């Protein structure tokens, strides 16, 4: 007899969810405070709070670094598992990336089976991690500001802005897929409660579901 359709399985640990949501919150704070440092008169209601915006931006950046240090110290397995999850890309991942934007009726078959993180989530994680390092390095150089050659602080400033422009569509796409697409909305439960329905896992992450049923995966 089949499993009951509502059986829930653990997809994300508490540390993973904390990392995700605190990162998301800090990202929004950094984006908005950065925007209010960047925009000029006529576009910016917080110009007379520039020092406050700068403090918020710097404090949020420090909190972001602290977040990774805390997770690394308090739950070293979390970052290790994330690293292992995103390390391997196989043919199914390549095919998944190739076909994911093609509507099902044109594709004519389901997407290739995926592990706990699908290929898009892996790519998103790697890009976000690299961008976070990029923001940290360029932000530190900008913060060093007048103590550094202006060519260096201005080069950092240019790339900080370019990184922001690159990250906005990436994050926007992530949010749209998580919130608006009915077929992928099941994943939202996972990152909120930690658990997803087994039928969702079988449908969207079949290879991970196999390992669950074989008792190989524990969070």
């Amino acid at each position, binding site marked *: 007899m089949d499993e009951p359709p509502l059986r829930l399985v653990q997809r994300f640990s508490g540390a993973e969810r904390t990392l995700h949501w605190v990162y998301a919150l800090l990202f929004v704070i950094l984006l908005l405070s950065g925007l209010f*440092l*960047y*925009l*000029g*008169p*006529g576009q910016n209601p917080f*110009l*007379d*709070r*520039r*020092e*406050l915006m700068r403090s918020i931006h710097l404090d949020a950046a420090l909190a972001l670094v602290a977040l990774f240090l805390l997770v690394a110290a308090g739950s070293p397995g979390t970052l290790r598992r994330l*690293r292992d999850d*995103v*390390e*391997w*890309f*196989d*043919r*199914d*991942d390549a095919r998944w990336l190739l076909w994911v934007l093609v509507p099902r009726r044109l594709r004519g078959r389901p997407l290739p089976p995926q592990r706990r993180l699908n290929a898009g989530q*892996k790519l998103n994680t*790697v*890009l976000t*991690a*690299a961008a976070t*390092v*990029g923001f940290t*390095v*360029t932000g530190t*150089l900008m913060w060093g500001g*007048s*103590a550094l*050659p*202006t*060519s*260096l602080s*201005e*080069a*950092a*400033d*240019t*790339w900080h*802005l*370019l*990184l922001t422009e690159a990250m906005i569509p990436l994050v926007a796409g992530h949010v749209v897929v998580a919130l608006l697409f009915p077929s992928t909305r099941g994943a939202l439960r996972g990152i909120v409660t930690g658990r997803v329905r087994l039928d969702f896992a079988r449908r969207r992450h079949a290879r991970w579901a196999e390992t669950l049923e074989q008792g190989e995966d524990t969070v």
Partner: protein
Amino acid sequence: MPAGPEDVFRGRPIGRRLFIVLLGAGAAGIALAKHAYAGDDATPGNVATSVPVGSMTPDEGREPSEGVHPNIVPPERFRYYSVGDIPDFTERAWRLTVDGAGLDGGMELRLADLKAFPNVAIRSTFRCVTGWRVRNCVWRGVRVRDIVDANSPNAKAKHITFYAGDGVYTDTLTIGQARSDHAILAWELNGRPLIREQGYPVRLIYPDMYGYKNVKWLRRIEVKPVHDLGFWEQRGWDDNAYVYTPPSNG
């Protein structure tokens, strides 16, 4: 080496490589940008260079159009900000008042009177505190110190407040800053009169400091013993808005 069954199953270890490649590309990007900006490091000694007056003729620049700065590197363009309405002065109606307790004299200048002072031209980068910048701006004008000196400064001449013609905006320099070779009252950018958004007919240019110190649509220069905070400084912005490590004597 041929892949074993486990490798075939797991795929290729790409994640970390991709991460490292992205970091390498980012580092290379910063190095390239630094190299591109290298000739433009701001220091007290090179933040502006004197150039012969008239060395930039209009023909060297692009045709001016509303809101677009002629003769600039393509991605670099001015963004025009104003906290009040942009004044619409005519040369005929505009006057510049020079007064204050720090002067024994005082005067009211028409544009032609201002242009009769010794003209200077400086090449500098215009830097906005919000991060954008425009390189190779050639400004033509007269030195602030020549205007001050023509009005018999006295012992009370410690600070200068510059008033914009919008009736709202002000900013200040110390008398020491204003006596710099490259603190000028400019009426021309790259061989053309300033456009309205740029501060027509005359604006302060002091490239040692961020753009908000460079008051547009100048109407009044007040030389005085006390220090006023400018429009943005009253709202918490740095009074010493240097684009480089400021000199220890401020």
